[in-house]
C-alpha cells in the first residue's frame, strides 16, 4: 500500500494569497494512499526541507508530492531532500500550484479547487513511480579526430594539450587540408603555410597525438564514452619508420619527368604533374612519400623499381599491405571538411572546356609561392601573365537551376582577396568582379572588401555573366552591370570562378556510419542550430569545420576549439552519469519490427538476439542503449505492441493522471 506524503507550500504569499493551502492539505489527506499532508510557509527553506525529511522517516513514506512552484525551479532541490531521508529521489513529484495556478488565477475558490486537483493528479502519478538509479557509463578518455584539415588539427591539439590522448585520422598522405593549398588568407593576408606549418609539425611531435595519415575509418561501433573504431591504414609502400624524407625517390621516378609525366598533381588541382612516388607538397606532415599504385610502373608492369634502388634508407617496400587497427575511444570529432565544385562540374561559363577558366582553389595555387608557377600569376593555356582577369562570384552558389541554392559564404571574401593579391603581383593588371551581393559580415571583413575596390582598383560589377566565349586567345565575358543598367563586355585573359563549396563526396556514408544526420547536400547536422552547434544527435560525436557548412578559417578554428572543449568536458569524468529516465524494452512482447529504431532521433535502439540454451536464434528484439537514449519517448509512442516504456513517464503514470482528472 502506498504511503504518500503531500507537502503544500505557501511560497510566502505567492501561493497562499489565492490558494487556501490549509484546505488543499486537508483535501490531500482524504485521498486514498496519502499518509500525511501538511502545508508550510516555505517548503524550499531549510526548515521546510527538514519537515519533509522528518515526515518521510516518521510516516514511512513511499512517495512524496511537493505542491509548490514549477519543477523547473525546485525539482532538483526536493529530489535531493527526499534522498537525504533515504527515499529514492525519483519517488518525488511536484504539483505546480504557483506558476500554473496561484499566479494565473484570481478567483480563490477556483484556484483552490484547481490546486486540489493538481495535487490529486500528482498523488495518483507518484503511486506508480518506481525507484530509479542513475546510469553510469564508463568513459574511455581518448578521442578520435577524423580529418586533418585545420579543423581537425586544431581540435586534436586542443584535446592533446588538455592532457588527453588523440588519434587523428587523415585520408590523404598528409595533414593540412585545403588551408595548406591557400596562398595568403583574408582578412589579414598572412601566408597560409606560415601559420599552418608549425601547427602541423606540432601535431606530428605531440606526445598525446597518434597520427594516422593515408588512413580511413572503416567502422564505428559502440556509443558515447565507449566507441570501438576500425581504421584502415592504406599501404604507402614506404616504411614511415625508415624514411628520412630526403626526396631522392621522387626526383628519380621516371613517371615524374617534367616533360613526360601525365599524372595530375592533386594538390595543384591539375595545374602541374607529379611522379608516382610523391609527397603531396614540400611541407607535408609526415614528410613520407606514398606510391600511387595506379601510375607506378612497378605495380603496373613489374618493371622499374628505381625508387627502391635509389632510396638510401631502404624504406621503399613494394610488399607492404593495408593494415587494419582497432582503437577504443570515448569521443569522436568529425572534421572532414569540404570540396569545391570544380569549374568543369559547374559547366556554365566554359568551365572544363576553356583552359583559362579556372576555379578559386586553382587560382590560390597560381598565387602561392610554392605553387606550380612559383607564385607568378601565369595562365594555364600558354603561361602568359594575364593582364585582365574576370572573377565571377556565386558560380554555382545561390543557383537553383545549375548549382546549389545555398550561399557558400566564403567566396565574397576570397574573391576580394584574389583581386587584391592579383594586383599585388601584376601591378598593371586589371581585375573585374561580377557579383550578386557582397556578403562581408565579420570583423574587418567589409573593410577588406572595400580596400580591394578603393585601394587596389578592382572593378566590381553587380550582375550576372550572360555569356562567355573564346575569341582570339581571349575570353569574352558578356554581362550587365545592373547598377548602371549598362551591358558590359570584357576581353579577359583569365577567368576565375568562385565555385560553390560542397560537402565531401562520401560524407553521407561517413554520417551514416556515425549515425549523424546530414542535410540534403551532405553537410552534417549539428544537434541544435543555436544552442548545440558542435554537438550532434549522436551522443559523443562532435563537429568541427566545413563538414558542417561552408566556413572560413576563423570560424572553423573556433568551432574546432569548441568541439575540443566538449570532448575535454566529457573526459573530465571517469564515468558519465546519465538521468535514468530512459526507455526500456519488454523483450518478451517485442516483435522486432524496429519502428522504434526508425523514429529514435539518437540512434539509441540496438538489435538484440534472443537465443535458447542451445544457442538457436529465437528472435531479434529491440534494445535501448541507456548510454545513448535521451529519454524523449518517441519510441514508446510508436511501438504498437506497447513494448517500450519510458521510465518516469510510463503509460501507467500517464493513465493515472488522466483518470485523476476525470474523478
Amino acid at each position, binding site marked *: 500500500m502506498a504511503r504518500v506524503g503531500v507537502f503544500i507550500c505557501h511560497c510566502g504569499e505567492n501561493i497562499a494569497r489565492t490558494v487556501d493551502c490549509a484546505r488543499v492539505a486537508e483535501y490531500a489527506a482524504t485521498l486514498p494512499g496519502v499518509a500525511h499532508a501538511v502545508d508550510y510557509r516555505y517548503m524550499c527553506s531549510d526548515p521546510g526541507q527538514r519537515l519533509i525529511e522528518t515526515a518521510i522517516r516518521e510516516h514511512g513514506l513511499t512517495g512524496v508530492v511537493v505542491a509548490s512552484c514549477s519543477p523547473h525551479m525546485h525539482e532538483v532541490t526536493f529530489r535531493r531532500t527526499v534522498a537525504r531521508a533515504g527515499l529514492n529521489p525519483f519517488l518525488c513529484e511536484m504539483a505546480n500550484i504557483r506558476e*500554473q495556478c496561484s*499566479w494565473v488565477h484570481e478567483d480563490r475558490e477556483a484556484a483552490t479547487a484547481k490546486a486540489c486537483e493538481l495535487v490529486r493528479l500528482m498523488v495518483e502519478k507518484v503511486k506508480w513511480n518506481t525507484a530509479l538509479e542513475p546510469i553510469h557509463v564508463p568513459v574511455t578518455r581518448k578521442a578520435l579526430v577524423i580529418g586533418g584539415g585545420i579543423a581537425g588539427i586544431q581540435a586534436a591539439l586542443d584535446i592533446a594539450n588538455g592532457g588527453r590522448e588523440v588519434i587523428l585520422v587523415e585520408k590523404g598522405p598528409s595533414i593540412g587540408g585545403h588551408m595548406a593549398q591557400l596562398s595568403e588568407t583574408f582578412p589579414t593576408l598572412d601566408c597560409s603555410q606560415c601559420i599552418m606549418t608549425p601547427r602541423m609539425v606540432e601535431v606530428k611531435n605531440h606526445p598525446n597525438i597518434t597520427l594516422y595519415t593515408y588512413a580511413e575509418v572503416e567502422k564505428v561501433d559502440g556509443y558515447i564514452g565507449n566507441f570501438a573504431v576500425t581504421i584502415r591504414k592504406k599501404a604507402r609502400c614506404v616504411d614511415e619508420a625508415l624514411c628520412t624524407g630526403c626526396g631522392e625517390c621522387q626526383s628519380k621516378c621516371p613517371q615524374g619527368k617534367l616533360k613526360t609525366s601525365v599524372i595530375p598533381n592533386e594538390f595543384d588541382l591539375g595545374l602541374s604533374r607529379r611522379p608516382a612516388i610523391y609527397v603531396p607538397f614540400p611541407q607535408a606532415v609526415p614528410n613520407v612519400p606514398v606510391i600511387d599504385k595506379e601510375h607506378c610502373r612497378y605495380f603496373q608492369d613489374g618493371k622499374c623499381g628505381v625508387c627502391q634502388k635509389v632510396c638510401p634508407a631502404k624504406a621503399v617496400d613494394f610488399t607492404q599491405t593495408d593494415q587494419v587497427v582497432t582503437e577504443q575511444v570515448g569521443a569522436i570529432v568529425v572534421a572532414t571538411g569540404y570540396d569545391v565544385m570544380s569549374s568543369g562540374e559547374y559547366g556554365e561559363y566554359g568551365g572544363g572546356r576553356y583552359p583559362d577558366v579556372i576555379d578559386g582553389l586553382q587560382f590560390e595555387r597560381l598565387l602561392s609561392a610554392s605553387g606550380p608557377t612559383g607564385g607568378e600569376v601565369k595562365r594555364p593555356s600558354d603561361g602568359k601573365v594575364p593582364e585582365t582577369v574576370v572573377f565571377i562570384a556565386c558560380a554555382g552558389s545561390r543557383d537553383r537551376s545549375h548549382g546549389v541554392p545555398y550561399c557558400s559564404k566564403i567566396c565574397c571574401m576570397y574573391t576580394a582577396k584574389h583581386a587584391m593579391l592579383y594586383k599585388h603581383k601584376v601591378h598593371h593588371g586589371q581585375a573585374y568582379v561580377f557579383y550578386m551581393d557582397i556578403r562581408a559580415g565579420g570583423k574587418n571583413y567589409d573593410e577588406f572588401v572595400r580596400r580591394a575596390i578603393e585601394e587596389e582598383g578592382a572593378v566590381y560589377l553587380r550582375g550576372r555573366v550572360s555569356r562567355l566565349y573564346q575569341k582570339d586567345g581571349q575570353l569574352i565575358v558578356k554581362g550587365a552591370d545592373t547598377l548602371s543598367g549598362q551591358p558590359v563586355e570584357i576581353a579577359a585573359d583569365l577567368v576565375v570562378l568562385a565555385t560553390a563549396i560542397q560537402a565531401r563526396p562520401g560524407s553521407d556514408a561517413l554520417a551514416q556510419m556515425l549515425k549523424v544526420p546530414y542535410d540534403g547536400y551532405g553537410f552534417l547536422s549539428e544537434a541544435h542550430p543555436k544552442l548545440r552547434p558542435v554537438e550532434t544527435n549522436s551522443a559523443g560525436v562532435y563537429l568541427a569545420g566545413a563538414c558542417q557548412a561552408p566556413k572560413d578559417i576563423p570560424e572553423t578554428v573556433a568551432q574546432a576549439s569548441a568541439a575540443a572543449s566538449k570532448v575535454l568536458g566529457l573526459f573530465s569524468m571517469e564515468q558519465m552519469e546519465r538521468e535514468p529516465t530512459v526507455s526500456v524494452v519488454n523483450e518478451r512482447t517485442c516483435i522486432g519490427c524496429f519502428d522504434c529504431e526508425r523514429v529514435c532521433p539518437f540512434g539509441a535502439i540496438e538489435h538484440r538476439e534472443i537465443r535458447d540454451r542451445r544457442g538457436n536464434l529465437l528472435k531479434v528484439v529491440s534494445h535501448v542503449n541507456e548510454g545513448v537514449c535521451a529519454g*524523449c519517448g*518517441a519510441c514508446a*509512442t*510508436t511501438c504498437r505492441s*506497447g513494448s517500450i516504456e519510458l521510465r518516469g513517464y510510463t503509460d501507467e503514470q500517464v493513465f493515472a493522471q*488522466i483518470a485523476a*482528472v476525470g474523478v
Partner: protein
Amino acid sequence: MMSDTFEPKIVAFVCNWCTYTGADLAGTSRMQYPANVRIIKLPCTGRISPLFIMKALEQGADGVLVSGCHPGDCHYTAGNYHARRKYTIFREMLHFLGVEPERLFFSWVSAAEGRKWADLVAEVTDTVRRLGPRRSAWGEPVEGIAAPRLSANPVPFEAPAGTFAAQAEAMREKAKALLAGGEVGTVIGYEQGTLPGTARPAFVSTPEEVDRLVWNEHCHQNLAVYAARKPAKPGKVALVVKPCDERSLVGLLQENRLAREDVVLIGMACHGVQSEGALAPRCAACQTRTPALADPVIGEATPPTATADPRLEQIARIEQMAPAERWNFWQGHFSRCLKCYACRAACSLCTCERCLAEKAQPRWIPAPPDGAGNLSWHAVRAWHLAGRCVDCGACSAACPADIPLYLLNLKLAQVVKDAFDYEAGRDPAAAPPLTTYREDDAQEFIR
C-alpha cells in the same frame, strides 16, 4: 466564485521543454486565464501518444489540448515532427468516428510564448464551454439521434470465361513443381469450401495433394496472413497471392516480419473476387491487378469495370453527417462487436505477439465488449493499421457482426495518401509513414 455556467474539464498534454516552460512564463508574468486546464507534462510531443487523447476522452474530458515546441525547436530535434504526423491521422480518425472536432486542440507554444499560452487556454476553455458537456459518454450513443444506415449498390460480377480455369491449371502445375523439386515444403492456396460457392485456405505438402487447389472468384481470403507464421512442415512456404494480398507482404517486409527469400509467391493476375453474390466493392475500381513481387505471375488480368471506388461514396456520405449522427452510426455498428477479434486474426499485418488489447497493465482498451471497450478497440485497431492497411478486405469479411471495418481503414488510407503522399504496400524499401516525417508536412490544424 465559481459560476453556474458549465465548467469544462480540459486535459492538456504538453512537452516539458517548450510549452510547459511557456506556461510557467505566463505564470511569472501573472497573466490571467481560466482555471479549467489540467496539465499533464511529458518530455516531448513525441511521447504524447494520440492514444492519450483517446484515453482522456474515455475518462470524460470535455476537451483535449496537445502542445509542444514549434517545428525546428524540438529539444530532441524530431519528436514534434513525428508527433505531428501521428496527430494528423488520429485527429481525422476521431472526426470520422464522430468526435466533435471543436473539442480537440493542437498548438505549438514555445518557452517564450507565455502570452500565447494564456490566450490559448482562454480560447480553448471558451470554445468548449460554449459547446457544452459531451453529448454522450465514450462508447455510448447520443440520445435522440437515429443511427443512420448506409447501403451500397451491388456491382454484378462477370469474370471472363475460361480465365480462372486456365490460371488454376497453371497454378497447380507450378505448385507441383515447387513441391516435387523440394523448393518448398508447403504450398498455401485455396480449396473448395464446405458450402458451394465458397473457397477456403488449403495447406498442401505433397505434389499429389495439389489437385485439391482451386482458383476462382471465391478466393477472397488473404493468405499472406500465414506468411509470417512458422509452417508446420519443414521447408519454405509458397503462397498463392492476389495482387492486393501481395501488398500486405510488402508491409511485412518493411516491418522485418519476413525476408523476401523466406517465401515463394505464386502470383495470380486478378479479375476481382466475389462477395455476397456480387463483385466485392473494393475490386470494382481496383487498379492493382497484376502482382508486382511474385515469382511467377499467372494469367492476364482483367481491367476494372468501374472508374470510381463505390465505397468512396459511402465515406463521403458519412462525412456529410453531423458529428452526432456519425457517432451514432459507428456506435450502432460497434455495439454489435463481440470482441471475438476475428478481424485481428484475419489481418496479415496484425503480427504482434501480445496485442495492446490484451495488455492488462495498464489497460489501454477496457476489457468488456461494451460501448467503451468496443469503441476503444476499434479506434486502436484502425489507428494501428493507419499507413499500413492495404485494403485486402480480410477484416470486414471475417467479422461475424458485419461491422464495416473497411470504411475506417479506407478513410485512414485516404488521409495518409493526402497528407503524406504514401500508399501502403507498394515499396518494401519505403519507410512506413508514421516512422518518418518531412519538415514541411502540412499542419493547418495546429495553431
